[in-house]
């Protein structure tokens, strides 16, 4: 028994798609091939926008093996969505211990992309530089709704990260490094979304249960920094710089989860809760390895220092929730920037 090929596992309706492509071709006879294929793909909801798809097609046209046309490449782009669908189904059921993100990356690459990589390499020229593959994976497997996929920018990002190695004239196989480079961020973000959705679901269920069993809903007793935890997690895995604005938003969300507009709060009432919750959220976002060097108690101590400095600047110990929020944001934002930079 032979291994089932990628084409068989992720079947696409080539005949039907080809008929549709021919219709577009007949409609726009004055356009060049790449323009027609771009229209065809965009109409199939593939790619972030027409310009990006067109630029990607023009770039990869040069490195397709002899005998392969742009429409073949387009079919692979469509097939990639089938792979993504199956992979996301799998990921939505996955339960990685301690939400280990490296494990999520390794497991998904092994389960879905290792064979796919061999397959996709068979349609591109043998001497194709490796960063083209990691860039291609980013384009093929990113969720299109969330960002623009500009081929030039993506190639620039990958060119220094994944050099091509040769042994004499032969290219050395570094496919796993390439797959990790192209797909790690995508898998991490997808899995974080799964975790986020699960948490939301859990909260919804709990709320539903509480509504059924009690007449009075108790107010939240703590700060919940889902975005902070998620941001730290992403940084630990990808090591990519996080924009200040993103950190500020995460801090704002953390504070909003507790402080309500129009309610007065005493500093001494929330000080301990804030220190405990912020340290806990940051700690939860760390990888197992980093948890060994940044123990929870140390993080609590660091947050305590920040809050002590903050307490020296306040004039009133009883303020409205919104006022506390706007006063605390710059202090906590600066602290998180420093903390992440030191990881």
């Amino acid at each position, binding site marked *: *028994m032979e291994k089932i090929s990628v084409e068989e596992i992720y079947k696409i309706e080539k005949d039907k798609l080809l008929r549709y492509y021919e219709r577009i071709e007949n409609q726009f006879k004055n356009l060049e091939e790449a323009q027609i294929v771009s229209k065809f793909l965009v109409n199939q909801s593939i790619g972030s926008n027409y310009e990006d798809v067109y630029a990607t097609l023009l770039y990869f046209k040069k490195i397709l093996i002899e005998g392969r046309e742009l429409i073949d490449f387009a079919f692979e782009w469509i097939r990639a969505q089938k792979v993504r669908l199956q992979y996301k189904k799998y990921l939505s059921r996955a339960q990685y*211990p301690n939400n*280990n993100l490296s*494990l999520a990356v390794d*497991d998904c690459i092994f389960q879905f992309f290792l064979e796919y990589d061999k397959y996709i390499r068979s349609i591109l020229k043998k001497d194709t530089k490796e960063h083209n593959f990691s860039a291609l994976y980013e384009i093929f497997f990113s969720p299109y709704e969330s960002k623009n996929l500009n081929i030039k920018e993506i190639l620039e990002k990958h060119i220094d990260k994944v*050099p091509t190695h040769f042994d004499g004239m032969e290219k050395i196989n*570094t*496919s*796993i490094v390439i797959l990790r480079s192209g797909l790690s961020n995508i898998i991490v973000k997808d899995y974080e979304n799964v975790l986020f959705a699960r948490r939301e679901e859990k909260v919804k269920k709990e709320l539903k249960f509480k509504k059924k069993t009690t007449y009075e809903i108790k107010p939240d007793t703590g700060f919940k920094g889902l975005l902070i935890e998620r941001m730290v997690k992403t940084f630990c895995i990808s090591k990519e710089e996080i924009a200040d604005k993103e950190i500020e938003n995460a801090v704002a969300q953390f504070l909003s989860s507790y402080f309500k507009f129009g309610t007065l709060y005493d500093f001494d009432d929330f000080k301990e809760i804030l220190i405990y919750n912020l340290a806990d959220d940051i700690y939860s976002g760390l990888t197992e*390895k980093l948890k060994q060097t940044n123990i929870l108690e140390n993080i609590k101590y660091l947050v305590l220092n920040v809050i002590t400095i903050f307490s020296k600047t306040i004039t009133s110990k009883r303020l409205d929730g919104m006022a506390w929020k706007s006063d605390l944001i710059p202090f906590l934002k600066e602290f998180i920037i420093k903390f992440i930079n030191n990881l």
Partner: protein
Amino acid sequence: MKAEDIILGLFYADEDNLVFDKIKFSEKFNDMKINDIKMLSYRFLGPVFLTAATGLGNNWKIEFIEASLSLHNKNIEEADILQSFFTLNSSIETEEGTTNLFALISTPYTEDTKLIYDEISNYIHPSIIQSKLVNENLLGDRVDFNRLIDSELERGINLIEYSLGASRKSYWEEEQRYYCVGLIERKTGEDLRVSNLFTCNKDDFLRKVFLDYIPSYYVMAILPDYYERLISETLEAYDKRGIYPNIRRIKLNYRDKKVVYLEENVIENGVSKSYGVILVQHFEETEESKMISYYKKNLRLLLDTNRDLKDILALINPHLKFERWGAISNEDLDKIGLILDKRD
């Protein structure tokens, strides 16, 4: 699964035979026990280098060893925790030399060994080599290889642990036909250790033909006993008492050649009695080539119905002679080396 419920180790030997390991064990173990466990990497990897180290014959690799576990003392509560015991080894040859990634696994489930072998040989092992190469190229002398390999092994062991518990599937390899070149009879008890090899006559031209398809008669004769004892010591090192291993299968390969050693056993009055067949794959297919299940059935007949060994030998391969070659004492083993392994 908790660390104390399983035995899971990943050992990597680089081109210079430098060994790195990542082993899961209970936090309750003391330093002495941990040291014993740490030594397992060298002891299990040793025979992997066996044929290379002796410089004799081709560089055969031990790819898979599987043992079944028998319960000897029914009063021991934790004894039924472990069900599977196996090792897997992936070898990759490059111009710089050969690297080996060896996994030692024992769990409470009947594991899908093929899935784990694919993970090791297609993902974890290549990722170590590739990461080393890419990082060396990007960072030059600044690469901390120990840390890099350690981190890859950590990722690898997590991946293996995550896939544990997937039930075993039947694979197409089981359907292939094999030719039997020898049979090993073993008896192990408290004060008893017997091991005999049966193959064709020393003057039969087939003896030399067989030799091209196996590492050597010597290596084949010592492997089951060596590994059975090593696995027994491993179980002891992990405090898994009351269970005893019986070798079931050993797979070796050299380029496109494959050897499967298949063993069945029975325990009678405290004595473990086993018979195993040495099967080769890339032998010209003849009437004597049979599927694994055929050999298994005949080995069971030998053990369960007291069928005559002579008859079974004639049945599985008429060229095999009813002549015992002792395989325990050094003297006997030397005899196998001198006579059966002689090529000219």
